[in-house]
């Protein structure tokens, strides 16, 4: 790191801290918590608080069909709830996690730059801009920030080649949001770049971590509900069948896209409008269609696992049934750590303008549909479609440019060889 970069880093972090403190000081968070663009039923903090309230009153937190998050997260926040200056600490946690995300992105991009033979300009200002966007993430106080944070940690540690930590962080994010299981492939590739370790070893480690987290959450629930596990089989049967248990309410909740509250994703309107006979078919296809894409992606980018990681993260955040702007923004920021991509992007201007327009139209259309009653749901749906389209274009474009970039590197090497 040269002086310029350190200066940029300090500037960015100061800007980030400044923005966050100001926004929290003027209670912007109270407005943002209720915005459906930023928090969904899957990640909303108010629903988390509802779960905490229910468990404090001797009920299961999943009773009432409002709380849909994982038990460990719930216990973490219920510990906070007993503290005195609860709101301040809550704000602090979200702001620091968000800020750490920013720093991690910075560090990851530094790692990228060190690796590449190409000289690229320092784009700190770019991250500073994104820090404004990301501060919305912490203002809305969605718990989606935690799996994203663990995701960045995974990438960072995997770049360093720390096997145990990276698998642990990945399992944390998988535990909180099951879709991130797809990221095991780039993590394996990254770790195998650094150290010679078998694939099965990594998968085994990952499995152990996830299972331990799951068993930890089950023990939490057992303690809570005072279930004496006289027979383990009966207990597991209960766990699977109980409609007020965490499997039905958090694991299956995200897969089945049960809640139809609008978000910026593509699932909600389909779930409202689809004929119930075809619901499962469409749900399966739309959830599963990402998986066959992973194979060619892996084949193409086996030598660039960082890019593979970020592109899969962006795909997940686009096609998540409970999509959020914050998650999308962080994934885009992660993608743009591969700054060399920008060079070959064909329609960057178009994509960014669609992003801008659709994001600014979302609250307008929401207002005209829900508050004013002058517009209808199709307006909002149209805006989310445009956002989805922008994301899809961005993904396609970045894959295209990454392939071109790979090709260039290859040929430059060849050329160099030829010249020599």
């Amino acid at each position, binding site marked *: 790191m040269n002086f310029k970069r350190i200066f940029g880093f300090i500037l960015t972090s100061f800007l980030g801290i400044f923005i966050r403190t100001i926004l929290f000081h003027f209670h912007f968070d109270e407005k943002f918590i209720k915005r459906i663009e930023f928090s969904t039923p899957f990640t909303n903090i108010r629903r988390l608080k509802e779960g905490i309230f229910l468990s404090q*009153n001797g009920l299961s937190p999943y009773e009432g*069909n409002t709380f849909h998050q994982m038990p460990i997260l719930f216990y973490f926040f219920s510990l906070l709830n007993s503290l005195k200056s609860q709101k301040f600490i809550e704000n602090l946690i979200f702001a620091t996690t968000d800020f750490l995300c920013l720093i991690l992105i910075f560090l990851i991009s530094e790692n990228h730059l060190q690796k590449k033979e190409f000289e690229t300009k320092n784009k700190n200002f770019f991250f500073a801009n994104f820090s404004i966007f990301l501060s919305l993430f912490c203002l809305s106080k969605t718990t989606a920030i935690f799996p994203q944070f663990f995701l960045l940690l995974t990438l960072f540690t995997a770049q360093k080649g720390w096997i145990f930590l990276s698998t642990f962080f990945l399992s944390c994010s998988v535990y909180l949001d099951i879709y991130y299981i797809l990221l095991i492939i780039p993590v394996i590739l990254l770790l195998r770049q650094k150290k010679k370790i078998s694939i099965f070893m990594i998968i085994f480690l990952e499995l152990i971590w996830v299972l331990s987290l799951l068993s930890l959450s089950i023990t939490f629930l057992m303690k809570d509900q005072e279930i004496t596990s006289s027979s383990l089989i009966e207990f597991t049967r209960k766990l699977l069948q109980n409609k007020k248990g965490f499997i039905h309410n958090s694991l299956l909740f995200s897969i089945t896209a049960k809640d*139809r*509250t609008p978000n910026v994703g593509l699932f909600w309107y389909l779930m409202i*409008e689809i004929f119930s006979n075809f619901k499962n078919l469409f749900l399966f296809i739309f959830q599963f269609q990402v998986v066959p894409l992973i194979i*060619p992606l892996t084949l*193409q980018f086996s030598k660039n696992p960082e890019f593979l990681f970020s592109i899969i993260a962006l795909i997940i955040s686009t096609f998540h049934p409970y999509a959020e702007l914050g998650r999308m923004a962080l994934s885009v920021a992660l993608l743009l750590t591969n700054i060399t991509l920008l060079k070959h992007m064909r329609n960057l201007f178009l994509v960014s303008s669609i992003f801008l327009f659709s994001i600014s139209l979302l609250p307008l259309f929401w207002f005209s549909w829900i508050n004013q009653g002058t517009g209808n749901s*199709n307006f909002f749906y149209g805006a989310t479609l445009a956002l989805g389209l922008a994301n899809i274009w961005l993904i396609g474009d970045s894959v295209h440019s990454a392939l071109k970039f790979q090709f260039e590197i290859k040929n430059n090497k060849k050329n160099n060889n030829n010249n020599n």
Partner: protein
Amino acid sequence: MKSFLLLTLFFIFIIITFSSSNSFEDESYSEKLIIQPFSKSQILFNFQFNFEVHHLNKYHDFGFFPNVIAKLMQNHNVFQFKLSLTQGRIKFEECSSIPPITAPPGAELYATFHNQNLIQEKWKFFVNELSGIFCASLNFMDETSTTSIKNFPFENFMATNNTIRSQNSRYSALHREGVCTENLTPWIKLLPCRNVHGLATLLNSEKIYDVDYHSLSVSSVDFKEKMSLSASLVFILNPQKILSQPNWSFSKLFERKLMDSSCSLAKESLVELYLPNYQSEEIKIKPEPTKIINDLNSQSLYLYDLKKSEFPFDLSVKFPSNSENILSEKFPLKTDRITKNLNGIFGVIQTTIENVSPNDLKFIYFEYLPWFIRPFIHTFNISFSNSESNLNMNFNLNLNQNQEFFEIIQMIPNTEYSNPFTIEMQINLPKQTVVTLSYEFEKSFLHFTEYPPDPNHGFEIPSALITLKSTEIHSQKDQQNSSFLFKENLRIYTEGLLIPLPVPDFSMPYNVIAISSTLFALFFGSMMQILFKRQKENQNQNQNQKENENENQKENQNQNEKENQNQNQNQNQNQNQNQKENQKENQKENQKENQKENQNENQNENQNQKKIKRKSKSK
């Protein structure tokens, strides 16, 4: 022989008649009409028809007890139930006397079952059968709009053990249910004399549905050995509005009068007329009452026994010219329930209850919300405030801890597509104090088939129920001699709520499926194209690269040329000529050879040549 046969037949006939008359003796039926002033200009008419059967026999051959109800109760194992179908809402704030049976607008059904097994299923069948009997759409009282109520609000039934009530009870209300003559006809069919004889002759459906408030109710208890049923009809009307004068009579109000006799099956047939205390000369009441009881809580009772009265019976009251129907008594509680729209899909439901009476009151507050209104229970806030004593307290809901002022009896969180959110609590409200209960809620989005036919009307939320225990009132009555005339618990219903849910576009399913699928296909297709087409392009690019290398070489040549520009001008011209010749030669060759095979190469070559041309021209 003939005479003997006749004799035996006669004896059999006598035995049958005796046995049947015995079963008649087991049953009793009474009818009563209570007329009392309700508010400044309104009068309340309360028709009560009570049935009782002692010693139920196996075969249920009743004399006049409605067989439908008895069978219904026994088939579904119902211990007791109460159904009310109501039009209009009592404005409790304005009323000066309490209606004996209060009901919320729409339909309300409460039932307790004998035992707990299969209670959900029993309720379902029971409700469906009942809706068939009374021609009401009670079948909408399904699992999603039914809840249990622990503290029995209908105390006029005999007290039984509490455990039955709390576990086996079901309560449901349909706020939107319309009530009309089609409900009245089956109700009248329950009565032994129909509307041919007795008090029910007054029920002219054209007139009694043209009133301010109209409530029809049936309640029944089954004690296995004995059974009781009470059917009642309450309506409140304003003679000032209908007749444009305060004086009224049966014939004027209903266009009917009791013609020939009272119902002969009735054990007693009474008309009770309550009026404020007047001097006997001032007020003119026809016909002469059988009994007058004065000074009854500042009211006087005019009692008519129809068994002894003359017919036709047409009650008419003529008030003194400058009299006002004043009853100084104030209603003890003031209630108000509103929704506030916060931000789009969020809102607040707020209930305020004010104790206007000079005494501390203890009451039970009960409300339930259907599942699609999702409350945030952690925002449930109970605040007491008193402007006089500067009392200002805020509480959050806590099931484990009982506060001084309130006590949670039960709280059931809602579940999607099944049980509604229910809260029941006891509140001790000090005098002149206002309690405000408020909580935030979120509207949920339904599947497009789950919306009712007119979705933009909104969803009706049943009114909250406040139950004042009868003992509470009685002690109060003793203390200050108030005019409240009720023996059972006083139930106060707040306003129902109308919450508009956000509505999707119902004409869109095909479009949405098509457009969303297109977007997904676009993603998948474009990704596949980019990822797989690259390899071919790579090959092309390899070719291109070779060409680039050639170009580089030529550029080097050109650079050399630059150095000797003047010298090489002629050479360039020569080169161009040579190239043209080459082109022609190539074309000729191509024509001779198969074009398809070598097209690409030719094109490339041509392109190269053209590029070279341009460069040379530019120079």
